[in-house]
């Protein structure tokens, strides 16, 4: 059966502000799910708190809307227990890089095979526009009384240092590009992070749709010069082909991630299929793990008697 993105729509009213970047992200996600032919009951979308936290309610797959900053622990718990599920975590920049950044970093160490989408708009929207961890030092978005006094976190650099094996960036209003990046992230074997640049028309009056489009910059020809450019179009090779080049590829990606302002790269920065996933690591210790994961294991017989045999424990502890 051919799926359409409308198959993944719920009838819940989408209550984001008009013009919100989230609409583009939601559409891209639904299109990606449809194009990959994923069945709705095999997909779980896990979110945190904030405007992005509402995403699961708008997508007709299993949805788990969790706590502020805790998207990743929930998502990993789901995926580790049932590796057959396609798990997509979504969260805002405040959620993932502020309150939840410890989970973001430590998830990188595990490389659980799932996707993490960061809605990055530089502000805390739902609490009325405070600076998020990705807002740069000295910038004053409209709702904060003074310019931002803290440095920004660069999600790409952080993810690469933390061990994410797929790190990409896309843009909320380039639905086609974002959809393709999300598809690649889903298909990647390992933990994939997508940093999604997203205007907040209500609270971020600096990084607007017009700013990303470069409407303030007109070339000699009279045409506007967009700020965003695609890594795949400039021949950037994000792939680690051999573990020996792993470090060099990370450095190259980090070097690219420094670009901001007049030239902002989107696309895949780093991809490494050679690092064992958490599932592969568990399988080395528990060989039947993938065939019979925790969610699928029988724990009792028909009469309710436990099937785990604890004789070995008693033998070890025996004292007579």
């Amino acid at each position, binding site marked *: 059966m051919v799926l359409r993105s409308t198959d993944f729509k719920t009838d819940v009213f989408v209550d984001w502000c008009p013009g919100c970047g989230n609409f583009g992200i939601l559409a891209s996600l639904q299109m990606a799910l449809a194009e990959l032919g994923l069945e709705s009951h095999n997909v779980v979308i896990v979110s945190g708190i904030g405007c992005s936290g509402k995403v699961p309610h708008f997508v007709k797959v299993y949805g788990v809307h*969790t706590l502020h900053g805790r998207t990743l622990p929930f998502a990993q718990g789901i995926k580790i*227990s049932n590796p057959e599920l396609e798990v997509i975590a979504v969260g805002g920049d405040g959620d993932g890089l502020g309150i939840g950044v410890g989970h973001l970093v*430590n998830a990188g160490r595990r490389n659980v095979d799932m996707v993490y989408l960061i809605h990055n708009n530089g502000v805390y929207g739902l609490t009325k526009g405070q600076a998020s961890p990705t807002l740069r030092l000295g910038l004053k978005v409209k709702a904060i009384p003074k310019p931002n006094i803290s440095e920004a976190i660069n999600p790409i650099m952080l993810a690469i240092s933390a061990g994410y094996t797929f790190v990409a960036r896309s843009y909320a209003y380039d639905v086609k590009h974002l959809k393709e990046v999300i598809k690649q992230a889903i298909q990647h074997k390992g933990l994939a992070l997508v940093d999604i640049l997203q205007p907040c028309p209500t609270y971020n009056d600096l990084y607007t749709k017009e700013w990303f489009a470069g409407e303030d910059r007109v070339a000699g020809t009279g045409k506007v010069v967009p700020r965003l450019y695609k890594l795949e179009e400039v021949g950037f090779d994000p792939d680690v082909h051999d573990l020996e080049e792993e470090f060099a590829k990370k450095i190259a990606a980090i070097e690219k991630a420094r670009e901001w302002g007049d030239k902002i790269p989107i696309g895949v920065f780093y991809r490494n299929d050679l690092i064992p996933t958490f599932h592969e690591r568990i399988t080395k210790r528990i060989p039947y793990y993938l*065939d019979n994961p925790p969610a699928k294991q029988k724990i009792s017989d028909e009469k309710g008697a*436990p099937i785990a045999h604890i004789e070995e424990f008693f033998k070890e502890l025996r*004292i007579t």
Partner: protein
Amino acid sequence: MEDFNWMIGGPQGSGVDTAANIFGKTCGYGGLYVYGRREYHSNIKGLHSYFHLRISPTEVLANVNDVDLLAAFDAETVFRHIGEVSEGGGIIVDENQVNTRLGDVPSLPKEFKSDFSKHLENKGLKDGLNDLLEDAERRGVKVFRVPYTVLLEQVSDRLGMEKLSRATQMINTLAVGISFGLLNYEITLIERAVKAVFAEKPNIAEMNLLAIKHAYNYANETFEKMLKYASPETSVEEERIFLSGNQAVAIGKVLGGCRIQTYYPITPAADESIYLEAHEILETVNPDLKVGVIVIQTEDEIAAINMASGAALTGARASTSTSGPGFSLMVEGLSWAGNNEVPIVLTYYQRGAPSTGLPTRHGQDDLRFAIHGGHGEFPRIVLASGDIKECFYDAVTAFNYAEIFQMPVIHLIDKALANSSQTYSRFDIKDVKIQRGDILKEPMFTGEGFKRFAFTETGISPRVLLGTKNGVHWYTGDEHDEFGHISEESDLRIKMMEKRMGKLETVDKIVSISERVNFFGDHEARNMIVSWGSPKGAIIEALNKLNHEDSSLGFLQIRMVHPLPSRQITEVLKNAERIIDVEMNYSSQLAGILAEKTGISADFQILKYSGRPMTTTEVYNALKLILSGRAPKRQVLTYGS
């Protein structure tokens, strides 16, 4: 044979635990029952630790105050514990250390030194170890001055070791050898215990065995023996086990079907997870069924509880284990699990608090916190185990309750249970049942999704696991409709609150009273003890002794502390003349809850918050004082170093 209390002490890292393990196993092999209490500092090496083993031909449930044989190989152990050694008891001491003065022991805290100096001054004693030992001898304590260094040199020679320092590591087992030599204990049993303790290191076992035998022979030939405690029982046919609360919980979880355990390292909870991970591949009754438990060390306790919740939504039985500071971080996640009716089990090992408090010591400070922790009102069950055996069965029950009632279950235990070890007949598991509650395998899809939170009479909605075909639904920390979508509608809010909270009444209806309280002693007693958790053993022993002496005492042990079976508790307590609350905290938390829920106030409180568990001796004395009519309303117990 009488009860025999053996204590070994020494700096942390010197093998006190190993020595105690060998000693306890040997006694077990000899058909004796053992109760072992482990005390240690929050420190890796150097600070004082000790193990108190109570050994008896009949079952032992707690510690007592007396020490019959104190095995010391450093001066601090003697300074700290000499006062506990009973008349007719003995002290094993390093002869090289008898000239040590109190001020010479750097690891003794200054508070101890100044208090102890005053104590000695009052008794007209000097502060040298030998002065103390001679004083002890005057009151009938035997002192065994052992030339540890000479013995170590001889052992080192016999093993052909080049460096004496390697042999020094065996000073702990020398103390075991001396002890057994004094008792003239059966040597083959010691051999068996040493081999069991060092099962994976046969060379180390051989070395230690040689050291033990050497010390044994030395003591046997040199000292007058302490034969009144000696003999092993005739061989025991029954299969007995010796285990700690940490182990009991872990094995209970395995049996109960736990398949995901998350944790962040914290004392005294982490040992449970370590033990589980060491046994991650499980045997089953049917060799074709491959099962295992995955233990995940998370980056913090917040991740631990939320990862467990995620796992539970997929249908895996999932749990996490922590202590007070960790639970503080978990409460937001607990609130989410409560709101979303997630069946998780949280094993809560209390320790002395607040804040970091007494990280390696005992306390029951968190009863109210376990019941109320988390913002908002949501249903949960709090089960408090009273002994190591209950820890085992409750670990299974906790999962059953979690799934039947679809709510988080807190299994509340404490450091005394976690780190004490006790001899039991092998646990009988033939009546253990797994009850998974209402899980729908083939839900009907309505188009909009599945009503995960459908309104029902019991408040329990059939559950669909993530990944089930036609079962798509949602979870949210927000208030939600039956599908799990966000809703702030006031009518729906009222209905949803009533559905969730109503489940506590369902618990009240369904769970039998025998699973919620235990009763001991005289049902018609005029004096009723109420308590919860680990004081159980000391209370039962004290009560049996007092009732044997013609007192009239009953003991109501509350196991399900939330929701509290108030009606049945009222029935038991309403006619009592004296109600005596026993618990290990400052503010008698259980008594407060009973007053709130039943209107009945305790007349007397026996409390302890020194960080050391209650002993039978002190509970007995405190109860006796109450029965005599001369007790203050509140008695605070203090025994233990």
